[in-house]
């Protein structure tokens, strides 16, 4: 009964391909996030949704498009993959919009673009 689950765990693909990463949380949280962790372990927010509404959209290429079909799911679609997209992508969720609530993270998806 994993709280925040991402699939796939590993993804190896060629440059130029389109791929998706799925995320689901069973915590009943309203807010979900995508973070990118680069090779130096630096974590950076990409997107955040609250009740299917986009509330944070950091400066990421338009090739990245989040989709939230319902508040328990936040998927990440990436078009025309580039070598620099190689990273670990973490999904997370938190309760409501309150700034004092902690986020719960998935185990990450290691994307390797070759």
């Amino acid at each position, binding site marked *: 009964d994993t709280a*925040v689950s991402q699939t796939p765990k590993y993804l190896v693909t060629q440059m130029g391909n389109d791929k998706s990463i799925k995320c689901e949380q069973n915590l009943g949280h309203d*807010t979900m*996030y995508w973070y990118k962790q680069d090779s*130096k*372990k*630096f*974590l*950076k*927010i990409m997107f*955040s949704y*609250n009740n299917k509404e986009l*509330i*944070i959209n950091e400066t990421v290429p338009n090739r990245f498009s989040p989709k939230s079909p319902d508040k328990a799911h936040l998927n990440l679609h990436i078009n025309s993959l580039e070598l620099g997209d190689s990273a670990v992508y*973490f999904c*997370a969720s938190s309760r409501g*919009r309150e*700034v*004092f609530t*902690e*986020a*719960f*993270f*998935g*185990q*990450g998806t290691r994307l390797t673009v070759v």
Partner: protein
Amino acid sequence: AQSVAQPEDQVNVAEGNPLTVKCTYSVSGNPYLFWYVQYPNRGLQFLLKYITGDNLVKGSYGFEAEFNKSQTSFHLKKPSALVSDSALYFCAVRASPGDTGRRALTFGSGTRLQVQP
């Protein structure tokens, strides 16, 4: 803009000794501060947070952190380190509600803790 600094890339400590992992922050308004731990090939796990009140916050696995407003710091501490504490530790901050638009955590660059037996 909010930011977090973790000045040490790595901290080495002998098992049984006390440990400190440093964190300083910059944010407008009141800060909400968090510590997370990441074990190899795993996601981040929440350790503790400071919202308001007592400056010494106790969290999971015997960890605690001290909020110091004048020094804008939130150092993570543990009285007696275990080998199993070896991991990557992240400090994070979220702005107070008065700082509109910032709802996600801003993370520091991480500090690798190595506890030697």
